[in-house]
């Protein structure tokens, strides 16, 4: 399912003395099946954009096309439920939204709100729990008895069980330990590659954006600063630092190596693995 934003504008507390602009003139395209990363600082408007993707916020100007629905300023949209089923959002620290007595009931909450029968929902819960790498017996436990990392996985399972076409992820690994972080990120890429899920990742981590995304949107002060493929974006590091973003460690390392070498490598490497292989190849060529 494609999502297109056209000149979207939003202001907080519109019409009061506390009014302040959130995003202005935001346009970009999330093509079906792609992995899109939205990067930018806190306050750059990332999370405001994110909340437009399933109409938790409505644009004050401009319009958003979500599949066959068009959300425009000032127009009532009746099929919000349909949109929200198809665009699932994993919010930052999603474990804060858990509330049911058992993990199973909590995971079923989403699907059943969208009209899935209880038995089907239970099957989905089982499937989702396996997907996020938790043992089945967790289903009958209280979510509040689990560790922080496990709660995070349960919350993610709750969104996956809705079987969305588009999965929007807001810093899904914040606060997790390194190995857990990798597991979860790999699971999302797996879903995107094998099930054709569209992924939108909102993140501070340049490393994650470089590693996983097909396309990157940089937000700065409420507007789109740049759009491009990771190799495009990270080739021009000056443009990144001009909006206060870090250069991914791999790219930074490649640059200081290139300085010694006196010429650029064949391509901008996006992961340490890629860079190590590239340098290895170069050594083979030289000797």
């Amino acid at each position, binding site marked *: 399912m494609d999502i297109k934003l056209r000149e979207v504008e939003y202001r907080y507390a519109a019409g*009061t003395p506390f009014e302040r602009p959130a995003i202005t003139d935001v346009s970009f395209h999330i093509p079906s099946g792609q992995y899109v990363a939205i990067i930018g600082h806190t306050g750059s408007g990332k999370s405001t954009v994110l909340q437009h993707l*399933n109409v938790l916020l409505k644009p004050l100007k401009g319009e958003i096309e979500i599949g066959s629905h068009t959300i425009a300023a000032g127009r009532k949209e009746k099929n919000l439920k349909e949109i929200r089923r198809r665009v699932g959002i994993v*919010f930052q620290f999603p474990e*804060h939204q858990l509330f049911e007595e058992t993990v199973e009931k909590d995971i079923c*909450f*989403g699907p059943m*709100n*969208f009209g899935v029968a209880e038995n089907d929902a239970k099957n989905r819960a089982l499937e989702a729990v396996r997907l996020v790498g938790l043992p089945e017996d967790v289903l009958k436990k209280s979510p509040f008895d689990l560790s922080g990392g496990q709660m995070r996985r349960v919350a993610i399972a709750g969104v996956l069980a809705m079987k969305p076409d588009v999965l929007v992820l807001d810093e899904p690994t914040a606060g997790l330990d390194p190995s857990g972080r990798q597991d979860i990120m790999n699971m999302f890429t797996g879903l995107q590659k094998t099930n054709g899920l569209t992924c939108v990742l909102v993140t501070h981590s340049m490393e994650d954006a470089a590693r996983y995304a097909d396309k990157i949107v940089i937000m700065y002060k409420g507007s789109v600063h740049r759009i491009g493929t990771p190799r495009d974006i990270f080739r021009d590091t000056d443009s990144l630092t001009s909006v206060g973003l870090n250069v991914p460690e791999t790219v930074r390392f490649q640059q200081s190596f290139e300085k010694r070498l006196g010429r650029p490598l064949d391509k901008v490497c996006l992961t340490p693995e890629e860079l190590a292989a590239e340098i290895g190849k170069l050594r083979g060529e030289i000797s």
Partner: protein
Amino acid sequence: MMEKIIFGRYLPSDSVVHQMDPRAKLLFIFAFVGIVFLANNVMTYALIGAFTFLIVFLSKVKLRFLIGGLKPVLLLVLFTFFLHVFFTKEGDILTQFGLLTIYKGGVIKGIFISLRFLLLILVTSLLTLTTPPISVTDGIESLFGPLKKIKVPVHELALMMSISLRFIPTLLDETDKIMKAQRARGADFSSGSISNRVKAIIPLLIPLFVSAFKRAEELAVAMEARGYKGGEGRTKYRILRWSMRDTMAMVFLVVLSAALFILRSY
């Protein structure tokens, strides 16, 4: 929605009203609640109305903003108005539809009572709009200080109030976040039957309680780590200063009451 409510919000500025001692403002409000009831005819209402607008003017809070903020309570005011219009049977009959008879006295009473209500809300909103919440708390702690002698835990109550004030925006933020997360999972907080709506609140309330308890626990630990061991031997960072203008305000209040007292028998 919540952004539009002005009651309980603070709007920084450097007006005379902002600079007043919170104790003076609190005493003023307590007195005002009584004084409003002195008004009983056009003259007195005009006087007290003019007086209220004088304070609004002095406070530099935009009138348009104040009136906009009153909208949420307008319904309540209208309800009071019609209650009096329909149920007061005094004076001449104005009109009659079926069983309902409307008297002139009812309309006048309705107007007066609604006006009284509005003035009270206006003045109390003005207190919070011109006084940082923490100063209100300081004012209350200081005014009620003598009650410590009869074992009222004034310090603890004031601390509780100031911590609640501190956490209101945090919890509102959190409510908003959880609400959005559950709406993204298909929860519907704004339609359906009453019983369905009550049920819909559970996914919001439980996470909110869980987090509030966690916050309370962590806050208690942090306070202990920072050396908090009760009110005994504690000094205060904020010091209240009563100035000439506060005394003036009190004098003014006495004059106003006297004027109202005289005018009410006309």
